């Protein structure tokens, strides 16, 4: 992933118990990643209905990541 002029947007659906927690830890460790990644907290990756990522793409985001 490289930063370009194009402001792409990536939504990272993250399970509150693990990936969201891990993202907090990454912050604590001052690890750097592109600012276009936006973490959205979810109760469990099981909550991810296939429509959610599809609708996100439809709305205009450039990528969806599900982490948990």
């Amino acid at each position, binding site marked *: 992933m490289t930063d370009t002029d194009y402001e792409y*947007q990536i*939504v990272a659906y993250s399970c*509150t*118990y*693990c990936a*969201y*927690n*891990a*993202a*907090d*830890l*990454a*912050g*604590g*460790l*001052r*690890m*750097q*990643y592109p*600012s*276009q990644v*936006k*973490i*959205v*907290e*979810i*109760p*469990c990756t*099981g*909550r*991810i*209905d*296939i*429509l*959610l990522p599809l*609708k*996100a793409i439809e*709305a*205009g*985001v450039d990528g969806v990541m599900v982490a948990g």
Partner: protein
Amino acid sequence: MVVGGGIAGMQASLDLADQGFKVYLVEKETAIGGKMAQLDKTFPTNDCAMCTISPKLVETGSHPNIEILTNAEVLDVSGNVGDFTARVHQKPRYIDIDKCVACNDCAEACPVGIPNPFNEGLNNKHAAFKLYPQAVPNAYAIEKAGIAPCRDACPAGQRAQGYIALIQEGRWDDSMRVIKMDNPFPGICGRICNHRCEDACNRNKVDEPINIRALKRFVTDKVYENPREPIIPVEITNSDQPVAIIGAGPCGLTAAQDIIKEGFPVTVFEAMPVAGGMLRLGVPEYRLPTRIIEREVQDIIDLGIDLKLNHRIEDLDALFDQGFKAVLISVGAHEGIRLPIPGANLDGVLINTLFLRDVRLGKYDNGVESDTPMLGERVVILGGGNVAIDCARTAIRLGKEVHLACLEDRENMPAHDWEIEAAIAEGVHVYPSRSFERILGDPEGNVTGMEFLVVEQFSFDESGGLHVEKKPDSKHEIACDTVIFSVGQRAGLAFIPDDAGVGITRANTIATNPNTLAATREGVFAAGDSVSGTSFVIEAVASGHTVGQSIIRYLQGKPLEPPPQPELPVVNLSDQEISDRIARGEIVHQSRVPTPEVQVDERIHNFVEIEQAYDEESAKKEAARCLSCGICSECNSCVIACGTDAIDLNMFAQEKTLNIGGIILAPGYQTYQAELSQEYGFGRYPNVITSMQFERLLSASGPTLGHLERISDKTFPKRIAFLQCIGSRDQNHDYCSSVCCMYATKEAVLAKDHFPELDLHIFLMDMRAFSKGYQQYYQRAQDNYGIHYHRSRISGIYEDPATHNLSFIYADNEGDQLERIRAEFDLVVLSVGMEISESVRNLGRQLGIELDDYGFCHTVQFNPIESSRPGIYAVGPFREPKDISESVVEASGAAGAIGSILGQSRFTLTTIKDYPPERDVSEEEPRVGVFVCHCGTNIGGYLDVPEVTEYAATLPHIVHAEDNLYTCSQDSIKHITETVIEKGLNRVVVSSCSTLTHQPLFRDSIRMAGLNPYLFEMANIRNQCSWVHSNDKPKATAKAKDLVRMSAARAALLTPQNTVNVPIDKHGLVVGGGAAGMTAALTLAESGFPVHLVEKNPELGGQLRHIFTPLNGKDPQKILNELVHRIDSNQNIAVHLNSQISNTSGFKGNFTSTLITDHGLEETINHGVVILTTGGEEYRGPEYGFGSDPRILTQQNFEEIITGHQTSPLDKDPDSIVMILCVGPAEKYCARICCTVAIKNALAIKQQKPDTQVTIIYKDIRTYGFKERLYTEAREQGVTFIRYDIDHKPEVKISQPSNSNEDSLTVLAWDKTLQRMVEIHPDLVVLSMPVIPNPDNKNLSNQFKVSIDNEGFFMEAHVKLRPIDFATEGIFMAGMAHYPKFIDESMIQAQAAASRAFRILSQDSLIAGGRVAIVDPEKCTGCLTCVRVCPFEVPIIKPDLVGVGKIMGAAYIEPAVCQGCGICSAECPAKAIQLMHFTATQMQAKVHALVQSEPVSVPLLDP
């Protein structure tokens, strides 16, 4: 009270608190979490340890019934069960936990670095620290060991460690600030201090002390390179209380500074034309340049002091007449002494102080000696002190020939040795041991020489008289034209009249109270050399501070003596501590970095400063030698950095008294100190590390962020060896640590997972994979990961000093031949065992409980977790080495035991928070308030918070936006509540840190304002924004705006979630009447809850009826009888024999079950919980000829025979017995108890008939924990052990030997050590048949909707942290239905199951709702998808619900048990299920808001 905040302590606390008890959790560290928090992953599931423990941490930290006491240790406990009184000592944290917002600013500011114990010393931490990122309580602490010896030794208490640490970090200005806190003359002391700090320095015990003085000099030079900043004068607030100070020396000026800073006007009178006293007039320029003195004096004067130069005070009374309220006499000791010897008054005889003063005042400049006495070409100095040396070296610089004579011999000259050496080097002739006979003069009265005698020895008598023994005939002369007396100085006190009321001592100093320095006249104080006689500048400073404080107190009308304060201990490191730290590699030998000097020939003709300062690099290098003895150096950097004023470095230790009913001790273990096993070279060889260090290396949050590297050269280690049993199963430890085999396997597997190229070898004796899933894990490690296991115990390691690679010899008997192999590795990991620390042993002693020789806690018979003192329970490794899941079981078990005895006192001490009624917002338009947090500089430093706030205000529905320095501080929380009320907000967004740590706090703040807590939303702009984009402020700011916009969009759509109360049935149902079932039923019933105990057999007892030989001295049948008796006599227990469950419905708190007896009688019962304790049974398969010959027995049969409960198949006692382990299913899973049972029975037979030949043929002997002692005893008793592997199984044959007409048994086994087949003809073959699960389990799993594993044992919700719970709420398991285990283990688990049940039964109702799934039956087709996908078995199809198309039957999800994961809502094909608070609309709103910077309108309700 629970002692120890590790996983066991947390579990015990939570179980007790959930039951309605008030819990004090006493933790000796600054945060809970214990050892588990240090682990990377846990076996056998490879779950992330932190991910699994973190929710428990948060739950424990936020539980209203748990009070966590960190930094605390129990002193003692008095009283009895139900009414204990505990005294707890709590060390100061130095940070107010209520004010700390965990922003990290203090740690960032802290210059002190010490080895980080959480990372096992692999990196450093600061003295201000948080134990680990997820620590609970989420607050920092400061570690202070005491006062560093340097500070203690300094008269002025100079915090040298502090400024040295700051020098290491290159923070020159901060360093200067720290010096000035105690000493206004850094540049001066950096040059001429006698530095007692260095004499006291602990580094003396390693090599040489830190060059503290030179470092101080360095930093002042560094700061003084810059132009002097103007000093802002102090505001005078007490103008009616002026103070006069006589003498502008270091003492007077120090006092002046302290006094004026308190707002009192100060006038300093100085007789000389310059200020600075002896510093300016007594110390030669080459040691102390004038510019330094002038700058430091000016810094004080500019505070607003009225300095009157050339102003000699002639009359003390006149000062009071002028209105001064206090007078300080600090005139120094400027009067030199002229000895009364012949010729003392000749021309050319000078006095030291006057000579040095004249030189400094420039009277000798350019060779013009104006009105001062002439200095001849040949000078003799009389005296051997530092001032004499100053005179000598000054005279040298004036171009004279200089001789110095003194009474003392060379070794005992009072001057510093290095000064004498330097003087000699510069050309001074030194004559020690001389008596000054007379000064010779010419008739004109001019000096011509000095006459001496040689002194043999001298002494002073009691009254101070001098007695000199002179060598006869030693008279000699030194020709000279100047003689300078330098034999002492005294104060000039002529201005004090005899009637002034100020007492003078015999030594011509002013008499004072030594504590306050008050003179005998009120309002008059005296300090410095005029009180003490001549001393060093730092003493003058110290004296100035003391008297300054006295005068301030005097003027404020307070008692002169300062109030007493508890003193911190001085950290004098013992030789042992030093050598330990060297052994661990924490201290490396490194001598002083030398200071540069101007060479002799360049310096003797001028007054250029001789010593030069360090350069930056040398200074940092020298500073890095500091051992940071005090840990916190009290440099105050954190105090300045803290934005919430949370730090108080003067906190004291506290003692608390707690009244408690029961005590659970879960103090945990310490890992074996591997440096004690010197043969492995830990501490000496950098690439030998401990398993815990390896764990930290693997951890993504560890010191290397999960990168595997060697300590010596940071390279990747390709070949790694794990050595087992380091500190276990050896001469000093007769027990097995139970966990090391598995954790080494886990570490190897994880390492291999990350780095497949690794070559990993584990060297062990027996593989102890004895719990559920462990054998399978071990198998996968070999088969799937290619990890090599070698049965060899390593006796020593050699290091190649060039490569730091490690090698050792091991015996390999895996192939056809026994070989000795020398192998080389890049890294060696020592699998260190468990020990009980000295502090835990002390705790045991203080509490009066019995410990064994190793410090492990003894427990009482029939109550496996109760210590020898009733009401005090011991759990976790404190009782015996064990892993996490067993510790958790024991913790719950102890909570169950306490719940059983203290049942009546539930909810007597718990508190309920009073909330206002909830406001109905359903008819209101969204009115959202946004609070954006700076988090000090943690957010504000990396992104533009005001800009984000302004932006937030422009978003739709936002009616209020503000930024706060710390949104979570106590006043901000209150402010949010007030703002919600004041502005009529109905939704709140906080943009700050993480929901995981802070959401409950903010939700509570809006609940206090009458809003439903679900009307809250958080934007994580710290952990997930400012910190991860800290290098790009514009992008971080833009992202923060995006995140706030997303949250605001969702917030507008949030709806209140209502919670409802569901009543609970207080009955318990226990299925299975064995040891576990009976214990569970008793624990519940004795706490007052009625229990149905269902047993399908006609009598209680289960497998316990077949166990006869005692283990650990406990008679199994006695246990059985006692249990049955207690059951029979308990009215709360309804025993249903010959009965089984035929049907169950309902959910947690509200079950209904039907019982059916053997005769077909049915009974329906209601109950709130279920405990399944259906046990297991001994496998009976055809392996090894079982069933074909009565002499081939199972272990259970054998036990019955040797205890006389069954007849023997032989007509005589057996002479030879073979036992074969791991039969049938045990080849696949380890049945845990067989090894121990076999050995127990082998020992029983050996006891009955010692010459019986007993041979045990085994794969691994798995006598974990203390059971290892049985294994050792069996070997000592002559039991033979033969190891086999699965490819060479033993064979059992029945044949008829030619010389007999009877069949005989033959066992053939391949002995790996002998490398040959062994043939045995035993009388009996005993097969260790494993425990297999109860075949009923399958049926029960269907009825109760609970899971069973591949073997047929019940499956727990989580193998480590929920080993008693099913995934289905309200149902628990215990005993062998879960996995094979010993009686005491079953009983503990049964108590634990009761404890889990108490959490439900003790409540009156369940709170249901919130984040739960809700079915819209009108859309439901009853397709069963939700029923199948739910991991918690919650959804059911209710036949009476009307579904889609008015067809009867629709899904129902009980909110009381829904876990809120949302799987059903995602999977429902008809979209009939919504997860409340995470509806599709709410979630999509975030994405829409993200991509469209302009707000979009989204429908308020889901379509």
